[in-house]
């Protein structure tokens, strides 16, 4: 599973970072980036989905 933050949509609500700091990092302006360009470790997949379902800007993309 891959996870990506669409930077044209992210407005820095930080919900993803609060849920999954292992996956996301936010810059000084609050915008989020995924730390993983390749596949996520299996044990983080649930958290990635949860972050995606809580993002108010629908900015988190998950692909299999």
């Amino acid at each position, binding site marked *: 599973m891959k996870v990506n933050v669409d930077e044209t949509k992210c*407005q820095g609500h*930080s919900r993803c*970072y609060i849920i999954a700091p292992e996956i996301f990092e*936010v810059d*000084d302006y*609050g915008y989020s980036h995924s730390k993983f360009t390749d596949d996520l470790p299996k044990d983080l997949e649930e958290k990635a989905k949860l972050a995606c379902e809580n993002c108010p800007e629908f900015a988190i993309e998950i692909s299999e």
Partner: protein
Amino acid sequence: MTTKLGPVKDWENDFDVLDYSYLNNPFEIWDKLRDRCPIAHTDRRGSNWLPTTYDDVTKIAHDFMTFSSTQVLVIPFMETARQDMENINPEVLGYGAPPITADPPLQTWTRRLILPWFSHKKVAEYEPLTQSICDNLIDKIIGRQFVDGAVDYAQQIPVRVISHILGVPEEMTDTFTTWVRDFLEFADNSENRFNSIRDIVIYLMTVIDQRKKLISQGENLDDIISFLIKEQKTNSEINDAIVLGMSILLLIAGIDTTWSAIGSALWHLGSNREDLVMLKNQPEIMDTAIEELLRAYSPVTMARVVTKDTDYNGCPMKQGDKVLMNFPAANRDPLVFENPQVVNLRRKINRHIAFGSGIHRCGGANLARMELKVAIRTFIDRLPDFKVDESKPVMWAGGQVRGPRVLPLAFLD
């Protein structure tokens, strides 16, 4: 002068966000509107539209070309006050209080200037201070049988934190609280409202002048207002009116909003013993609990002004009409939230927009969350179990910012 418009009989065509029933229980009104007339209208205080679904509120928030932020006040400013204001500072009105009253491009760069002051890293630095503010307040409350959760606690916290960030003395906190209430909460009293914003402008103009002098004398000041002044050296776009407008916003934006959120959270916990006990015994649910309380009791409604005649979802919106961005009602939309009327402190899926949606997303969200967490945690850890004292009335404020202003609590042991 206070305007009197009479109780609302027709919520679809003549709503009033200052109506007594709306202040006390807007939730049922939104539910009915969402089913029958999802965008209500009124001609009270100008032509205003009130969307109640998540879909409409987020779409309108993202279309900042059609729906401009140049008029964000839910209760409009009197025209006469506008002229009086020009006599004090003719420039401030041209820029308002960016980024909140601005559209891009002004909004974009003024917002970028202040965001780093509210990053997670920066907010962590304000946490010990917030903790000591809460502890000092509890020291005064502990042992008392009756406490006003709003006046004795919630109201006291955010104003002290923001005073620190702005670098202004703590003695000013009561004055700030009065100003903010007169400006946003008692907005229907146009005389008091004008006086409050005039006093804020005059006070901040003095503060800015003093800091400019100190900075030019080589003084090393590290508050946010001084930061804006120093940035003026390298960025000529930041004129004096913008520094003033941004300072006004920073003073106002975080006070009654956060105090309302803390107050509503205490009201909920004092009315639902199971939730109080659960949060006390399972501190690990704090993160979802905070998001859920923000969703269910979202404090903030902001306005937009329509920039060109638009037919939005069958509503004939005219240029100059206002749309009230009903983030609180959107957060109770059953199409997006499962059982939205149930407050579930463990809610897993919660895409709430209490901090707004789109480019104006609350700049102080991380700070507000930290204050909420510390305030609630400290209250439930240090005091015995409490409940809302039903023998006394709770008083709610609303309109632009909803939350309890009087919250009588009684302790159980």
